[in-house]
């Protein structure tokens, strides 16, 4: 068993190790088979994700050629001049269905509880960088939040958002802490700011804005907010699952 963790491996692969660490890591790598295997796995996972998410113009050109040839060789297939709208719709439907299945498996809405409780459950991920006062507050807030002590989480997160208004991470979980303590009118302006901004939480904010209305049985407004979430957003599948239930 190697003394280096998966995180060390990731930092090595990203070139984030200092010279002493690097020397120690490479010395271990020369003889440690377990470490070699884990590094190889890291690299394979990395290249698979690149293959999946990086724009690949050659692949797109290849697929366009296939679509054109499909039009020639398969009578019912889409015409060569069209970028296969039927196929695209079907693929989109399959993708959405697959995403919805994953969403269902993750959120397990059949496990009981009302609609709001089932969809509003979120875990706060520690977001620590420098070990300063803000980070100490965040650590404490994370513990409160994940222990469902939302009042105390909201109190600490408000301190952070007051001192650093641009901290979208703190804003998001502050809003969620407020919604969990039935303070929807206070949560909504925070969620709205996030939705109108460009942070990573933009569409999650829209989703939780919808949930604030679900908690008040205002399905019309909830649906409007869910409708603002585009298919490329990571929360889309969950939003669609909720939409179906409304």
């Amino acid at each position, binding site marked *: 068993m190697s003394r280096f963790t*998966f995180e060390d491996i990731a*930092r090595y692969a990203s070139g984030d190790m200092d010279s002493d660490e690097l020397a120690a890591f490479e010395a271990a790598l020369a003889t440690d088979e377990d470490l070699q295997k884990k590094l190889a796995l890291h690299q394979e*996972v990395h290249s698979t994700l690149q293959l999946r998410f990086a724009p690949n113009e050659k692949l797109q050109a290849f697929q366009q*050629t296939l679509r054109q040839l*499909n039009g020639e060789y398969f009578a019912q297939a889409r015409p060569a001049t069209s970028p296969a709208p039927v196929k695209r719709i079907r693929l989109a439907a399959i993708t959405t269905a697959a*995403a919805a299945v994953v969403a269902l498996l993750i959120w397990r809405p059949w496990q009981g509880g009302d609609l709001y409780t089932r969809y509003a459950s979120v875990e706060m991920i520690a977001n620590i960088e420098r070990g300063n006062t803000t980070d100490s507050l965040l650590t404490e807030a994370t513990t409160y939040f994940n222990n469902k002590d939302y009042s105390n989480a909201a109190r600490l997160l408000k301190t952070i958002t007051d001192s650093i208004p641009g901290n979208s991470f703190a804003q998001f979980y502050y809003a969620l802490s407020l919604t969990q303590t039935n303070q929807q009118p206070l949560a909504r302006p925070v969620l709205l700011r996030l939705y109108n901004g460009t942070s990573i939480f933009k569409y999650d904010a829209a989703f939780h804005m919808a949930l604030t209305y679900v908690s008040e049985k205002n399905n019309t407004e909830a649906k409007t907010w869910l409708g603002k979430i585009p298919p490329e957003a990571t929360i889309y599948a969950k939003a669609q699952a909720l939409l179906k239930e409304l």
Partner: protein
Amino acid sequence: MLVVSEIYRLYAPRIKHYIIANSGTEDDAADIFQEVLTDIYLQATQKQLELTCPFEPFLLLLCKRKWLNELKKRGRQPVTKDADDVYIGEDVFAQAEMLQQQQNRMQLFLECFEKMGDACKEILRCYMNGEAQEVIATQLNVSYGYLRKKKSECMAGLTKMIYAQQSGRNKI
């Protein structure tokens, strides 16, 4: 793309015949043919697939397997009306098996990725998209230092999850 045209000319009619003879439509045949060629293209360009068996039976076997899987997904009982008269040797089965294993492996990676938290998925997606980290940090409204740290944490978490799943499977 002359090679691709030639592949269509030589093999598309055969695949069409096979799929229609086995409860499919011409549209199904077009989809299956396109998906298999894309799989082969990706394996060849990204995973250094080198064909050591004849191409024709390899292609036919992959199309046939993909179609049978599709029938199973649709809840239809696969029938086995063999429309092809091509001999499929052990080398072809072995190479098709290898490709299938590669695809299963990729599938596992992507399934584990989907199980990650939203923040990690967003960061890794942006990162893999090839944009400069400074740009990603601005887009995601986080600091450059935080992004680098988080990216390593996310990759580590993902690799660890995959490693655990693989170890679990190997024990079975």
